[in-house]
């Protein structure tokens, strides 16, 4: 059984960790005058290697390692590749936009890579304590990154807000884990799944599940746990938001899929209505609030809440179709959201010279390339066909229709009609003729360097591929869904888990 060395099960994480450590050590040992920019390339290369390693893991048989704490399967590989892809694009984006003389460049890159370790581990973990640790690794990195513009007032504010609320949310998650341990006597996901239908103290388990859901839904910024999102997005540097709005969410959605479909498939009647309500709330609250925003990043913050809602609609789908739809949506959302934040980063620069929607007026005239890309990503966010956003929504809502949640689909699609209003407002402001009376803009002329160009190209290509030829990605998502739906493997012989004495009445 244990023919695969354990280390191969976490190879991407190992590569990322080594990269992060190397970047930190080099940064610390270099004299202060030397530019840190090459460290970004080191991180990008490390991430690419991790991406390859994830793909290589496809050749491994599905299974777990390290005493059934981490797993490699089509499901984990799907999310590993996705997360590594996002991190890679973010790194490329940061390479050209981080100011040359910026302090702590080395730490910035190292933190991104360490965050990626946590996120990757999060999707592969099949032991709730590892889930918790991985969540902490990824969260702490993002808390720090959120406050990176510490010379502004909003930067530290964003970091503190994110940190306080995020810690609360993780505490909820941990408490939920504790209760589930109390109910079933284990924290290993497959064992819980075995034990859950037989658990005597059902209310304890329900409470545990609810608390875990709160923790995870906070991470994906679903309403009513969304309040932090716009403030944090506004205060964080744009390239960080590109990462933060996609990769940790993808990882959190992977955990959510695991929790509801793998641990508690028997409690579907309980979590399904809960997620139904959260989905409707998220899309409605997100869209209504976004309509009123004047600040582009705040608007996109609310839009990401709405997208979490569309994604949650897929959870109304039955089994495989729901999981595949949710996985696909995560990928589509990541591609377009990273793309749009990349464009915003290039346009506004690290210092965000253009925060407001009105600032974008006439962008298409000043820079047809960036204006066109911005409109392209907005069109994808609206969900126009032949872009990734369309098929994401399409699969999500058809999963909902297939799971006979037709009302959810109708509410969702009406919501996406509503959402078109604010996306279009930005797109049309971009396309509008520049105001002749206005004083010439003080914003530096945006430059598209090699690294940023590559980042944008990757995002555009991903969005188009997901929108025009989604077959391969969908197949990957489906095979991932199958591994998640498959009956959990029996305990492998030779695994010794130190059991604590059972709690509660036997």
């Amino acid at each position, binding site marked *: 059984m244990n023919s695969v060395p354990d280390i191969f099960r976490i190879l991407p994480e190992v590569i990322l960790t080594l990269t992060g450590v190397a970047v930190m050590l080099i940064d610390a040992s270099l004299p202060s005058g030397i530019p840190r920019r090459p460290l970004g390339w080191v991180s990008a290369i490390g991430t690419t290697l991790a991406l390859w390693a994830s793909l290589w893991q496809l050749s491994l048989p599905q299974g777990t390692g390290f005493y059934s704490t981490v797993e490699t399967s089509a499901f984990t590989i799907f999310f590993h590749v996705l997360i590594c892809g996002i991190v890679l694009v973010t790194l490329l984006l940061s390479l050209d936009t981080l100011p040359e003389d910026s302090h702590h460049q080395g730490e910035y890159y190292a933190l991104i890579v360490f965050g990626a370790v946590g996120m990757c581990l999060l999707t592969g973990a099949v032991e709730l304590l590892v889930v918790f640790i991985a969540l902490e690794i990824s969260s702490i990195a993002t808390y720090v990154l959120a406050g990176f513009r510490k010379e502004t007032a909003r930067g530290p504010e964003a970091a503190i807000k994110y940190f306080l609320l995020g810690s609360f949310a993780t505490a909820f998650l941990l408490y939920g884990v504790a209760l589930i341990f109390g109910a079933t006597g284990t924290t290993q996901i497959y064992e819980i799944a075995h034990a859950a239908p037989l658990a005597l103290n059902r209310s304890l388990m329900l409470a545990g599940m609810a608390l875990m859901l709160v923790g995870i839904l906070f991470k994906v910024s679903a309403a009513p746990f969304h309040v932090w999102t716009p403030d944090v997005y506004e205060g964080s540097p744009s390239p960080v938001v590109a990462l933060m709005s996609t990769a940790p969410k993808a990882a959190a959605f992977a955990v959510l899929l695991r929790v509801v479909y793998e641990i508690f498939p028997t409690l579907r009647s309980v979590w399904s209505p809960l997620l139904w309500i959260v989905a409707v709330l998220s899309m409605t609250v997100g869209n209504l609030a976004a309509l009123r925003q004047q600040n582009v990043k705040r608007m996109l913050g609310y839009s990401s809440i709405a997208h979490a809602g569309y994604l949650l609609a897929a959870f109304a789908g039955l089994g495989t179709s729901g999981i595949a739809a949710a996985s696909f949506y995560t990928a589509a959302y990541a591609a377009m959201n990273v793309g749009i934040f990349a464009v915003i980063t290039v346009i506004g620069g690290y210092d965000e010279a253009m925060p407001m929607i009105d600032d974008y007026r006439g962008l298409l005239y000043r820079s047809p390339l960036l204006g066109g890309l911005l409109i392209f990503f907005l069109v994808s966010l*609206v969900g126009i066909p032949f872009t990734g956003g369309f098929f994401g929504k399409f699969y999500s809502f058809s999963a909902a229709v297939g799971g006979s949640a037709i009302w959810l689909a109708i509410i969702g699609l009406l919501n996406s009609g509503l959402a078109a209003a604010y996306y279009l407002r930005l797109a*049309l402001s971009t396309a509008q003729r520049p105001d002749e009376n206005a004083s010439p803009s003080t914003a530096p002329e945006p430059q598209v360097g090699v690294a940023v160009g590559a980042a944008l190209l990757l995002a555009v290509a991903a969005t188009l591929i997901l929108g025009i030829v989604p077959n391969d990605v969908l197949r990957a998502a489906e095979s991932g869904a199958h591994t998640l739906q498959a009956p959990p493997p029996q305990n492998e012989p030779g695994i010794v888990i130190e059991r604590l004495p059972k709690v509660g009445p036997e």
Partner: protein
Amino acid sequence: MNALNDSILTLILLVPLAGAVLVALVPDRAKLPNWLALLTSLVTFGLTLHLPFHYDLARNGFQFVVNKPWIESPAIFYHVGIDGLSLWLVVLAGLLAPIGVLASWNAIQSRRKVFFVLFLLQQTAMFGVFVSLDLMVYYGFWELSLVPMAILIAMYGRKDGPRAALKFFLFTFIPSAPLLVAILWLYARTGSFDFTTLQTLIAYGQFPAGALFWAALAFLFAFAVKVPVFPLHGWLSDTYSEAPVALAMVVAGKLGLYSMLRFHIGLFPVQARAASPYLIALAVIGILYGACLALVQRDFWKLIAFAALSHLSLIVLGIYGFTVIGSTGAVYQILSHGVVDGALFFLLGVLYDRYATSQINAYGGLAARLPSTATLFVLTTLAMIGLPILSGFVGEFLILSSTFGGVSRGWAIAASMGLILGAAYMLWLVQRVFYGPQSELVSSRPPDDLHVAELAMLWPLAVLTLVMGVAPSIWLPTIEQGVRRPPLITQYSPGFVTITSIPQGGQR
């Protein structure tokens, strides 16, 4: 030629797209984007002309079909094909493309590349709507057609582009949400997006009637907004007065009307028939309401917008009268309206270019200064108000006579009143703009009559109007074959007889 027959529709879709990519790549110098766009649209028009020459009138069903799997799950097929219904609409769209490019030749001065890229993208989307036989592909093109239009309205709007663009987009995008849910629901029940398959399954009663009612309503709602049918016309006048001439003339009405015929009546004949009394009433209201509003407009774009509402409503009347003659007339009227409205828009665009205002009372006595413009304008106007021997007459006559004989005399009489009003507002427009004393604006500018290029484009259109008026038999047999295509035939009365029995093949 067989190889071309198999790929012709794909080529028609791809050529404008390829043209758009090319335009995006060439430098914006020496009108290069214009020439490239013109070339692309002429090639496309040439390709569309291939269709009528190789269309086999003796064969029923779709022709030039391509049906290839595209996406596995859900089962979306790249399924395109045309029949008598869509054949001439494709050609019309092909014809209007080069005209649209020429109409923008001088009007579009800044950001020509962006304009022509989006214009050609719009062409692809329109062809896509006309030829798609897979509901998902159709929906894709339907949505895609909104984007270039909205962006171009925002970019080139005359007064308040972004507001008009947003209005246009939301008005047409939000109703397509129920449309998508309805399509998904059909798919969830059948596992197919294929038009013919769904048509058969629905006809054989595979669906619960109650749910089918809602699905049909979702389809109808989306199309009715796009046409627009009274009272869903809120976006129309702003769009017409803000949109660049080239786009206003290519989008007007056709997509929605075609979709009604193909997908509402085609898929849900029973439900469509049940809805027809309401639609007839709304259509007649639209005819009269549009005409009355057109009478009092001071701005000629707005006047044309409400005139369009009136004319499009007449076509809706023909479609939902459920007679073969009425539907044939309706399709013919779509063609005629496309040509005539195209010419009219072009001429108004010429006036707007030269005098930079759309206020009717700023004009006057233009005929003495711009004689050829006046001639062509009057000719177009006459075609529009349905003067016999010009194209507008044929469709109007077919629609009204079938309504009179086959539907209801009262509605037919009321609709005819709208046509009288139509003559009034159009002729009054001509009188105010071209005759009477010369206004200050007109006399203050040097006369700048139609240029050779403009004449070379307008005269063929004028001749086409005449040919369509005297020899409708070139077009009518194909259209009629398309309209009669089974199983639609069971829904139609053979001539002017009203059907009262419930047709075969529906739900009881």
